[in-house]
């Protein structure tokens, strides 16, 4: 610690002149002054205000106290490493005891209470007891998420474990009447006081298996009032239930072990009632919507079918059939025309060939020779081809183109070349 204050020697008039200090020097002096046993490792009790859990995990709040009209406050910090170990989530207005040390935060020039641990104020012993129970029951698997049962969507019978005289029962009854009036079965019990945990556990066991869902409910109260709902007897009765259990003990800020053991926690008894039954009006609406949907879906299906039918009818229409017959007929006409044309072509080809043959044939006819001025001699009806067949005095028929004549052979000459 730096303490080199230099005093100027008394001058005239005995006035001491202060020495100019640096901020760091002042800050160091303050830090040193706060570092006294009186402010280290102390337990401070007060009301939580401005509670804030930063995203870094550090927790900031103030501890306050009211004295008459005057309020006092100490700023507190809880580092993440300590905040992680909190067994409960503090809320504004909660009375707590904070353990820690006061220190100076130089960057902002303020002092803070660095809290290492927090516990509920008052009934300190009981808080510790609840924390011990919590640990033990947790080890037994009483709070295990995998053993949580699902609540029925549409229960028929609701069991309520609560005081038969309290406002809680009335609240639940009102809400259920409004949302979905069904059967309520009350398993009456004391909800506070010595031995209450035994009665509560009994009431839970008695109603288990007789209803679709059980609400364990109690109105708001002090930690002391709610204490029986932390008792292992009650917790084990809940864990043993075959029927799903909703815990609705105290107000939203109050937590009891009953909340951890139940299959679901409701912030208040009224909220529990809303949680366990569906809203009848909403269900009516939902069913009406389904009706609308099947109505319009069937309407659509019918409309589609009607359109299909029209399509088919259109295709079977007489005019369409006539057209198809005409098309066929046209096709047949076309075919027969092609047949005729093909046949005609073939005929004329044949005819041409025939006339060619005839021409050739005509070229070979003896009449042709006669026409060109030749004559043919016949003897005894046979054409004379050689003079060897002729003798003088033979009677010949000479055929020319336009007639014949009889002739007699005078003499026969043989051409020597032959």
């Amino acid at each position: 610690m730096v303490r080199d204050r230099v005093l100027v020697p008394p001058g005239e008039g005995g006035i001491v002149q202060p020495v100019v200090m640096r901020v760091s020097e002042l800050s160091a002096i303050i830090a040193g002054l706060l570092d006294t046993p009186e402010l280290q490792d102390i337990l401070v009790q007060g009301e939580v205000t401005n509670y804030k859990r930063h995203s870094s995990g550090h927790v900031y709040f103030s501890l306050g106290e009211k004295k008459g009209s005057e309020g006092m406050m100490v700023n507190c910090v809880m580092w993440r490493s300590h905040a992680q170990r909190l067994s409960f989530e503090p809320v504004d207005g909660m009375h707590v005891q904070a353990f820690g040390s006061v220190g100076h935060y130089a960057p902002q020039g303020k002092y803070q209470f660095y809290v290492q641990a927090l516990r509920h104020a008052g009934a300190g012993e009981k808080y510790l007891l609840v924390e011990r129970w919590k640990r033990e029951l947790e080890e037994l698997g009483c709070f295990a998420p995998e053993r949580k049962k699902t609540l029925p969507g549409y229960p028929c019978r609701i069991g309520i474990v609560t005081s038969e005289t309290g406002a809680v029962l009335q609240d639940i009854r009102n809400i259920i009447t409004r949302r979905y009036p069904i059967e309520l079965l009350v398993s009456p019990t004391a909800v506070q006081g010595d031995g209450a945990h035994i009665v509560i556990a009994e009431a839970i066991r008695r109603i288990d298996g007789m209803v679709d869902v059980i609400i364990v409910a109690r109105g708001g109260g002090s930690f002391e009032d709610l204490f029986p709902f932390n008792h292992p007897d009650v917790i084990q009765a809940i864990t043993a239930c075959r029927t799903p259990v909703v815990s609705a003990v105290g107000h939203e800020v109050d937590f009891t072990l009953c909340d951890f053991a139940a299959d679901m926690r409701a912030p208040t008894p009224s909220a529990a009632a809303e949680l366990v039954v569906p809203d009848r009006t909403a269900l009516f609406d939902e069913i009406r919507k389904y009706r609308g949907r099947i109505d319009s879906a069937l309407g659509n299906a019918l409309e589609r079918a009607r359109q299909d039918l029209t399509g088919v009818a259109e295709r079977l229409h007489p005019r369409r059939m006539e057209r198809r017959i005409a098309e066929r007929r046209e096709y047949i006409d076309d075919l027969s025309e092609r047949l005729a044309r093909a046949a005609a072509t073939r005929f004329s080809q044949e005819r041409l060939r025939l006339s060619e043959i005839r021409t050739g044939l005509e070229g070979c006819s003896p009449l042709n020779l006669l026409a060109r001025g030749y004559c043919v001699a016949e003897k005894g009806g046979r054409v004379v081809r050689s003079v060897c067949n002729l003798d003088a005095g033979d009677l010949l028929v000479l055929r020319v183109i336009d007639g014949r004549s009889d002739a007699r052979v005078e003499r026969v000459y043989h051409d020597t070349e032959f």
Partner: protein
Amino acid sequence: MREWRESTMTQNFENLITELKEIVKKIEDGETSLDESIALYERGAVLITQCEKVLGDAELKISQLGRE
């Protein structure tokens, strides 16, 4: 007080609603044939009436177990 087995109404309403939802889905699906759609529609109408009856018939009853 008789033992409360699997609640009949709970199952009933849940089954009705589940079947109704199935029917709505099937009718809305264009693949379902018209015949089937009409049959489903008839079944759906019955289910709706039953649901509404279950809801409409609901009434508050309160009873209390005796303490031991």
